């Protein structure tokens, strides 16, 4: 049995192993070097939550502390990628991406297409996302759907430590720009992770639980909420299949469609707001390609169409809960 480490340690280990393997891999971001050299501080803090801790001194000159200017260093990372490095830019909160969006969606995502396939942009942009930290509307959003919308970007939303490590290694080795989104509530989650390096290919869903009655497709942290709901539903005799696409772009449609062909019932769990979301996207795909298999309307369990509230009580209601997932599963199961 492999040893257990946290989601955060898994991300750190992936960065460490890829930096050891490939001298072109560098890290850029705010507070990576923070604390280093201060009285009583040997090591750098490693970013706001310490994800890159230990790497600053281990790879001298390759962990770059940047000014508080996402538009500056994300642009620099994209440029460095075009020139042969493999930068991993850390954006702290994904909510800050607005100021550097041109560099991402109108530059990095377009180069391969606009230069006849000759340009590669192997940049990874890591960022925290999601609600649950009492951090209010500007530090809690779930924006993977926005990046998924843009051709030329690959979008990764790992739900557990094993996937976080293997998908980040794949992200760094991939020759296209990758948006790698880490749910802040998952950083402390523990799981079995091999010590060796390994890469998980993009576009391959994980079937986190098998079942014949209802298909649940969930993303990131919501996979764990869905598994909690599925375990409770099992006691009521309802067997859920829980699918974790792992990457929203590319998307493993086949695994979702095969499951719906088997169950005929679909619940999608998405922490994003509902309009133009992964939930509505998958509902559309399944309605078109597996219409004949459906025995009940597709249910979408999402956040409401409002900013993430600062009130603790309201934030708890905002995030899709296992209870809401159970209720949706029961509705599609009992639909006649």
């Amino acid at each position: 049995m492999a040893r257990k480490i946290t989601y955060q340690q898994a991300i750190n280990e992936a960065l460490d192993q890829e930096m050891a393997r490939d001298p072109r891999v560098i890290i850029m971001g705010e507070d990576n070097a923070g604390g280093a050299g201060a009285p009583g501080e040997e090591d750098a803090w490693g970013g706001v939550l310490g994800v890159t801790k230990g790497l600053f001194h281990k790879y001298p000159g390759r962990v770059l502390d940047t000014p508080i200017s996402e538009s500056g260093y994300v642009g620099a990372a994209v440029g460095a990628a075009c020139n042969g490095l493999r930068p991993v830019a850390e954006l702290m909160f994904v909510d800050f991406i607005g100021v550097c969006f041109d560099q991402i969606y109108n530059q990095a995502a377009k180069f391969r297409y606009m230069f006849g396939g000759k340009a590669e942009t192997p940049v990874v942009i890591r960022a925290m996302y999601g609600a649950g930290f009492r951090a209010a509307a500007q530090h809690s959003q779930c924006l993977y759907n926005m990046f998924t919308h843009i051709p030329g970007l690959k979008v990764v939303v790992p739900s557990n430590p094993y996937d976080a490590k293997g998908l980040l290694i794949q992200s760094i080795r991939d020759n296209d720009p990758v948006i790698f989104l880490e749910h802040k509530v998952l950083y402390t989650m523990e799981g079995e992770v091999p010590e060796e390096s390994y890469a998980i290919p993009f576009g391959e869903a994980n079937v986190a639980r098998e079942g014949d009655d209802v298909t649940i497709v969930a993303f990131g942290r919501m996979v764990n909420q869905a598994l909690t709901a599925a375990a409770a539903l099992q006691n009521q005799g309802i067997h859920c299949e829980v699918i974790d696409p792992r990457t929203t772009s590319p998307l493993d449609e086949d695994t979702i469609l095969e499951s719906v062909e088997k169950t005929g019932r679909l619940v999608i769990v998405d922490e994003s707001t509902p309009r133009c979301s992964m939930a509505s996207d998958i509902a559309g795909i399944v309605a078109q390609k597996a219409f004949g298999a459906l025995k009940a309307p597709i249910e979408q369990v999402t956040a409401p169409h409002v900013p993430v509230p600062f009130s603790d009580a309201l934030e708890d209601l905002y995030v899709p809960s296992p209870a809401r997932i159970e209720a949706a599963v029961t509705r599609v199961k009992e639909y006649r």
Partner: protein
Amino acid sequence: MSAIHKLTMPKWGLSMQEGKVNGWLKEIGESIAVGDEIVEVESEKIAGAVEASVAGVLRRQIAAAEDVLPVGGLLGVVADAEVPDAEIDAAVADFLANFTPDSGEDEDAGPKPEKIEVGGRKLRYLKRGEGGEPMILVHGFGGDLNNWLFNHEALAADRAVYALDLPGHGESVKDVGDGSLATLASAVTGFMDAVGLDSAHFVGHSMGGAVSLALAQAAPARVKSLTLIASAALGDEINGAYLDGFVAAGDRRALKPVLTELFSDAGLVTRQLIDDMLKYKRLEGVDAALRTISGTLFGNGRQATVLASVAGGLGKPVLVIWGENDRIIPVAHARAAGKDALVEVLAGQGHMVQMEAANEVNRLVKRFLG
């Protein structure tokens, strides 16, 4: 009360926390002999039968088909026919009132795999049992120590039994050098030195049988007996398409039909089995290790090394076990291990016979070793 025997959900491997009842193989009131298969249960990894460890009559079926029980949960009751119903009901009520399943957090229970340095290279192994004449379990190509999940504990009832991951496999070092049988065998003798074993009974499956034969050839004094299960190196035929497919498969869809070749019951190729195999295949160095080994040992769909004469000339007890319907290495090879070898061919079984017919294989090995 001692005549009341409770059948409980077995624990097959470290990760098993619950199992599903597939169905009863004996009716209430039927007589049970020791070793009879009473009820079939299924973990997320594999299905198997719970056997009687005592003789008696099946008096209660507490769990019904499709029920999911935690490990240690009560399946049924075997007792002598004379035991009054009231006593049995009291025992059942007592059990149910006092049973608390493992929380799953108590993972310290039972032995855990360890790692040991052999010539600067890490090998993982799991030791079960103590004392007696030690035994070493050697898995096959692409396998690991978990291939012995259903054998290890049973075989370790009266001796120390070591299952190891060969180089290139499981959680051991992924560097396999030239990938030859001699290299793999020397890793095993190095392992024996490291854990302090002068000699051992060897049980090898498939390529692990070939490794055991190579070790017996190089260091006969270190081998007390050989049990060769669907072993390689007893003839030159092997299913080359399987090997190529296994090495090449990079995702679930490619891997499933390949793994199905290993089993007589295709239903055993669960998603969990496939996912575990994919996790292994994606580790850095595994692809190169598998390609090196298969190129060296099984190039062009033939076995490069045949060591059948080693088995015959060893002068030690040899047991050969094979599944009649093995689709990887033909059952005809079972007869090649010399006239003194004890040969057991199990009807209806495939290549992974030690998993699919674990109870039978365990019995044969224990009887062979006395």
